């Protein structure tokens, strides 16, 4: 009985189908594709957004059962602002999964925008490169490299007297001074007692050092020597007590002669035996020397008419300093 019901139901369906859809032509499969064909036919919906675009045997995109359809995609979004520009396997920039793309960018010129390499400190000091960009570090390197510095010592002075010095090793015979520093020699020639003596410094064009060959006018200054008094001036500290601040003025450079010598600025004269200085790098023990460091910042020519690459100098102490003292001169020239 059940089989009979099924047979009847099937017969009805076939009958209905024959009666209702008789006007729809039955296509022959597979469909014939005609180049340049026109007219209406079966329409497709949107392309799916997942990959691959494929389907079953009789679908429009039958997958492995037919030739692969290639879609040309030309629309891209912005490049990522982070580097590298990369993505997943099937992205436009597939990262490690694809060949690296190279973006060509123009070199910066004085007449055109572009990218440029950073200059090293050495290149900044040399100052010849035209295709490098200066960095803050390079600028500091250049500013601190103000020329060639030559250091020498005058013969010891132990009276009101004049001593002479020919400073050798200059880069030429016609140099320009940028900085001259004068101070009592580090660690040696400790005069013992405090001193405060006026000096006259003169430069000459010839080693004969005659007045007629003097460069400019005499330079006068005082050098004063004193010592750390009762407590060590500690590293990273700002000074302390000293035997006497007489002879010193605020903003003076002072030279800590003992231990690892260094130069600092005098910030405050607290009283007759206490001062504040800029931060020390090294410690300086009791009784180690402190002297004024004279800095001559005027720029003037130091020509050597002898053509021996020397600076000819005379130093005169205008009073007896007592014990013998050694005096260092550091000349920076260009």
């Amino acid at each position, binding site marked *: 009985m059940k089989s009979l019901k099924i047979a009847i139901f099937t017969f009805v369906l076939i009958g209905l189908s024959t009666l209702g859809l008789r006007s729809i032509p039955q296509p022959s499969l597979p469909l014939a594709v005609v180049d340049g064909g026109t007219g209406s036919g079966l329409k497709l919906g949107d392309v799916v957004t997942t990959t691959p675009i494929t389907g079953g045997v009789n679908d429009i995109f039958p997958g492995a059962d037919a030739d692969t359809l290639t879609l040309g995609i030309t629309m891209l979004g912005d490049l990522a602002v982070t580097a590298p520009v990369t993505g997943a396997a099937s992205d436009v920039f597939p990262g490690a999964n694809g060949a690296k793309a190279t973006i060509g960018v123009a070199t910066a010129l004085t007449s055109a925008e572009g990218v440029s390499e950073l200059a090293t400190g050495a290149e900044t000091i040399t100052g010849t490169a035209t295709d490098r960009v200066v960095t803050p570090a390079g600028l500091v390197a250049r500013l601190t490299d103000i020329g060639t510095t030559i250091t020498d010592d005058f013969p010891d002075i132990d009276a009101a007297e004049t001593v002479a010095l020919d400073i050798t090793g200059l880069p030429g015979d016609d140099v320009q001074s940028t900085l001259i520093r004068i101070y009592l020699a580090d660690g040696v020639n400790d005069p013992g007692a405090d001193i405060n003596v*006026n000096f006259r410094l003169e430069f000459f064009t010839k080693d004969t050092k005659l007045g007629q060959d003097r460069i*400019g*006018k005499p330079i006068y*200054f*005082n050098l004063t020597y004193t010592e750390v008094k009762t407590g060590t001036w500690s590293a990273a500290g700002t000074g302390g007590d000293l035997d006497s601040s007489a002879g010193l*003025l605020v903003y003076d450079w002072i030279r800590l002669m003992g231990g690892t010598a260094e130069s600092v600025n005098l910030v405050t004269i607290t009283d007759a035996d206490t001062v504040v200085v800029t931060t020390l790098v090294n410690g300086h023990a009791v009784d180690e020397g402190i002297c004024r460091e004279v*800095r001559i910042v*005027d720029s003037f020519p130091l020509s050597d008419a002898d053509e021996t690459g020397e600076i000819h100098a005379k130093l005169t102490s205008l009073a007896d300093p007592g014990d013998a003292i050694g005096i260092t001169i550091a000349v920076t020239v260009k």
Partner: protein
Amino acid sequence: MKKLFVYLLTCLFLFAPVAHAWDGVAFSSRAGVNPTGLVFAGLPLHSTLSSIRDRSRQDNDFEQNTVGKQYAFASSMNASNPVWDLDGSDFIAQKTYDINQGAMTFVADAGAAEFRDAGQDFSDWETAPAAGLASYRIVITTNNGISYGYMGASNNGGTDIDIYSDYALTTRGWKGRTTPQVSPDTAASYVVYKIIGTTNLAGDQSHIFLGVKPDDGQGVDQTFSSIQDNSLGDFRSMLFYKKDDGHVWIYLSGDGVNTTYEKTDAVIYANGAQASFNQIGFVYNGTTCVIYNNGSVEASTTTGAIPASFFDSHIPLAIGGLNVTSLPAGYLNGQIALYLIYERALTAAEVQRLVLQAWEEGLVSQN
């Protein structure tokens, strides 16, 4: 006279043989000092001391004085050296205006001190109390002595001037003879002069000569500078001078009487002609008086007690002599290059650097 002074100064500036290879060099960077508190720069001539010149107080109106004569100090400037040449018969003093115009009376302005010159216009010298410290002082000779005071506001068409006993113009009154506004005092004459600094050189101060060269190191007493009237016993303030034995002395008076002095232990000036200038000066701080010679402290001895302040004398500052009312005296016979007064006690290092600057700038040679 001002035009003549400017003309002479210009001529000397143009023709003075002052030339340095480094005239453009910054003002003594190695010495590096330009102390504050400068209230007077007696500057004969120099082309490069711009930092001092700019801060000088030339409007203190100094002039050269001889007995019975007054004329601008520029007339005796030495064209070949930037110095004042003093020949032992004249000196330089704060300019005083001695110009009685009409009948003079002491006015009791509701009991407050006031002075009237019926023919005068005091408005040129007035300072309104609200404007700050007085700029001028008036010194009046009466039939009963000297009365003086600080000049405040003028009124009554300029013929009257309010008189104060203090520089800050807070208290009306007179100094010297203090009751002139009440009869029987009668004004005979008066002078006006400009005040130096904020205390008329009564407080801490430093006097630096860069430098001075007497023609004779000893022989007679010769004054460097003074606020002193030897004809009166109680109007003395300061006297800085070379003693006839070559020592340097400073009288310091807190009460108008010379009882305290500081004297160098050593002879500073040898007998006879001097071969070089000395940078000589002193620093007073209310407790001590330190004498400097060529930038170094000179050992000295105090006689008497150092006053806490100088007597506020009515005598104007004089350079190279004693500005004695009745008869000038104590003349310097020699040369002065630059005289600086600071209304502050300079430190030893500041004095030393000033001297170094003077040498370096070629203000005066060392010889």
